[in-house]
């Protein structure tokens, strides 16, 4: 397990170089860099990327920001593509044509993971490839311009669920993908985001990479354009998500749930919602019911998680 201090952590080799075209205040490159820093020096990686903001911003011919080998294939098939690479690694190892150690890491946004890439992900996890699938979850199709996905939270204002006069944003609740991945009986599943000194995300990334077999890491990675927060507030948004229990930090090792962070004072969801323009309509007079409903949903999920963790 990684026991770096924050200073040691950030001194490790960067495997995603600067100069890529991701927005300021975007969570995705932070998630990627943090995960890749957990590769042990000397270990190689092949990174797979689903079509996404991240892919088109980091690998525009003739440039690549990826220092390790990288393959982008399409939107729906990052996990299957990684399956193929990992299987080729096994074949080459078996035939004695390769002696280096490689790790296989896939990055996809929530659209490429919760929705169009869901079948491919489920197949790869069930087959148990020695790989990590990392979802950088920004809760909508940001690359195409903020359309709702099955990860978009209840009532969020997106370009395909606009907060209108009759329909007040997205009518459905967010899909609980982390739980679905737990149901695949893979050895390691975790949910994390950027908080404090990055200890939680770093430790989980290290475990996910070095646990033999399939692992799934769900990282809340906010998008300033879609969520409508000032770019410098990124870490405040993720902290509020954790302190309100909207996005609890937990991991599931061989089916056993562990809560990694217990808020001292669980904050009301309004503290999280009010920071973001996508929820602004919920604060208009007469819409208090929406905030109350979200609070009930968060409370219910939180209680279920506590029970799962034996708390």
């Amino acid at each position, binding site marked *: 397990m990684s026991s770096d201090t924050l200073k040691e952590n950030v001194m490790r080799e960067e495997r995603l170089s600067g100069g890529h075209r991701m927005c300021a205040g975007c969570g995705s490159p932070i998630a990627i860099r943090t995960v890749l820093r957990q590769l042990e020096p000397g270990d190689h990686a092949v990174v797979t990327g689903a079509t996404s903001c991240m892919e088109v911003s980091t690998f525009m011919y003739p440039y690549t920001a990826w220092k390790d080998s990288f393959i982008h294939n399409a939107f729906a098939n990052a996990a299957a593509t990684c*399956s193929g690479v990992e299987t080729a690694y096994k074949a080459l190892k078996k035939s004695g044509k*390769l002696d280096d150690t490689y790790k296989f890491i896939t990055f996809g946004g929530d659209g490429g993971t919760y929705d169009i890439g869901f079948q491919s992900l489920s197949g790869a996890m069930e087959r148990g490839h020695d790989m990590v699938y990392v979802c950088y979850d920004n809760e909508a199709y940001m690359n195409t311009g903020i359309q709702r996905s099955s990860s978009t939270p209840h009532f969020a204002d997106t370009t395909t669920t606009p907060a209108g006069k009759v329909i007040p944003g997205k009518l459905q609740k967010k899909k609980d993908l982390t739980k679905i991945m737990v149901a695949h009986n893979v050895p390691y599943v975790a949910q994390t985001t950027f908080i404090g000194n990055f200890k939680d995300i770093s430790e989980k990334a290290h475990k996910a990479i070095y646990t033999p077999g399939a692992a799934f890491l769900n990282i809340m990675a906010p998008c300033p354009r879609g969520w409508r927060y000032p770019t410098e507030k990124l870490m405040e948004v993720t902290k509020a998500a954790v302190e309100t229990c909207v996005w609890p930090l937990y991991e599931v090792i061989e089916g056993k749930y562990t809560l990694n962070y217990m808020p001292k004072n669980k904050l009301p969801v309004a503290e999280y919602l009010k920071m973001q323009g996508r929820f602004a309509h919920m604060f208009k007079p007469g819409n208090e019911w929406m905030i109350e409903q979200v609070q009930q949903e968060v409370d219910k999920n939180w209680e279920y998680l506590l029970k799962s963790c034996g708390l």
Partner: protein
Amino acid sequence: MGIRERLSGNEAVAYAMKQINPGVMGAFPITPSTEIPQYFSTYVDNGEVDTEFIAVESEHSAMSTCIGAQAAGCRAISATSSCGLCYMTEMLYVAASDRLPITLAVSCRALSGPININNDHSDAMGVRDAGWLMLFAETNQEAYDNYLQAMRIAEAVSLPIMICQDGFITSHAIENIELVETEKVKAFVGEYKPAHYLLKKGESMAVGAYATPAYYMEAKRQQAQAMMDAREVVYKVGKEFEAMTGRGYGMIESYQMDDAEEAIVIIGSSAGTAKEAIKRLRAQGRKVGLVKVRVFRPFPVLEIAEALKNVKAFAVMDKTDSFNGHCGPMFAEVSASLYAQGVTAPKGIGYIYGLGGRDVRVESIEKVFAQLEQISKTGEVGETYRYLDVRG
């Protein structure tokens, strides 16, 4: 001297795969190609091959795993049919653009709808512009022989290749076949040695870039060049194969074409039926012949023009329709080939035939030749867009 056996077309292809012993197979079941991964996974589970088999959850993932595996530095193979080929279409384009010489066995079957499991060419013809090399077989022997030549051709030009045969007609029918000794196969096919790959020691590689308008068209132009370059490779590999087995292969097969006045152009197993019709008609003194297209991509433009330049009338047989209101895909390609080569004298018609397993009999082909005889005599072409053996 080879090994005499009796195998179905699917088993022959699976046996060729076993002899080649590639790195990775990713496959999903669909009738009628299902037997190929079935036979092959038996070889895997009995330790008769070193190949890693990935039993994926869809054809989209089958081709995706092949792309990942081939980019990573292994030979990658798959097999499919019909809707399965449709479902992997998105990835077929990527495989070609990434210049990955993946080998895909296709047991051709009609597309839904109506849903139908029998043979025609609507699946393979539907992906004819995806950038893949495409070889078609008349017999089980040809399906096997084409498979043994596939990787040599594909790897020489860095393009993926489809080895197509007719679903059920050859995929399930058992025929006598002459197999090549495995040591000879291994020596013929050789080791896969890509210049660059994801897992290459000492270098990293990035595959599948976003290409802006400044680069996209150059990438496509290079694919076009590779496809053009493949023609010469097909002949070279075919000649070497002939030296090994006595069975030679080129872009097309001309049958009784030297003095033919009427000819049909056909693809796949129905060529065998057509040859029988030609034998009967020749016995009656008719000067009829056949052009069998073995390689559909790249299209045999020169060979077709040369073969048809002296006929009075020809019919192009399409086992699929383009639904463009006037012809099937091969009629369009043959006509374009003749026009491009300045061959304008022969009168041509197109037939859509054998859809969804509609039986193609010797008599069916004789009917076509009867029509061609009329055209030869009268010079009147009439309707060029025709359906064979259909009610209504």
